[in-house]
């Protein structure tokens, strides 16, 4: 089984680092979608099957908070697990997003092993279901 993963970050470098991390972690990726902000991400989510979203918070056009908010109001999108990968570390922010279905939080800069573990746990859970 392989997964469709969406990486949402306005930095191309960060997207490349996450892409490389997924490869090193040997996550079976079918399609790796990339978006520069929340609006682009929602568009991709609308038209494609996505198994996991890795998203930043602070982005131009539409930030991660609004994106997650909109996802949580959509019947299908709210079932897609989201992992936040961000420098933003405010506890209230994180708690708020967890209540909207965010599954995990990774603080930048991150060790690739941390992302490997979290992605593995989430996708492993899905396999078990």
């Amino acid at each position, binding site marked *: 089984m392989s997964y469709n993963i969406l990486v949402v970050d306005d930095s191309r470098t960060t997207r490349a680092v996450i892409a*490389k991390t997924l490869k*090193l*972690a040997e996550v079976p990726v079918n399609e790796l979608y990339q978006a520069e902000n929340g609006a682009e991400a929602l568009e991709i989510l609308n038209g494609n099957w996505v198994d996991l979203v890795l998203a930043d918070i602070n982005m131009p056009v539409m930030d991660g908070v609004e994106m997650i908010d909109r996802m949580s109001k959509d019947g299908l999108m709210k079932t897609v697990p989201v992992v936040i990968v961000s420098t933003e570390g405010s506890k209230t922010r994180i708690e708020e997003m967890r209540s909207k279905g965010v599954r995990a939080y990774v603080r930048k800069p991150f*060790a*690739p*092993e941390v992302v*490997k573990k979290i992605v593995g746990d989430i996708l492993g859970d899905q396999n078990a279901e």
Partner: protein
Amino acid sequence: MNHIVGISEIKVTDQEDDVVLTYSLGSCLGITIYDPVARVGGMVHCMLPLSKIDQVKARKKPGMFVDTGIPALFEAAYRLGATKERIILKAAGASRILDEKGTFKIGDRNYATLRKILWKNNILIASEDVGGAVSRTMYLEMDTGRVIIKSQGNNTEL
């Protein structure tokens, strides 16, 4: 047979009854690799991060530095039949034991160099026990591939 890896030394083996170990890892970095298919393993005990401070020594004793020790360890293991795709890498040490004020940050710098080299070479750390202000002894058991850390009277498996 027990093989003791001294500071700046590298040891690789394909003998199942061997144990490769190193004592008193403080700010130094102990790195083990193990290929479970070829049953080849090895260890290096690196003292300093970068070889550019003394390239003559680095050529003589590549294990002294993290940036030369890791490639040398891998090459030695390749010669015994290990392959990069199968290698499991573990790390221990990089503490602040003699530098509690953090003046030199040798441990931190050793660890940062390790991370950089591994990222560049597409290798993830399978498991680690680094940092803090403790001394560690590291064992690689060749019959199982297990890595054991002994520190302050406790044994833990990495």
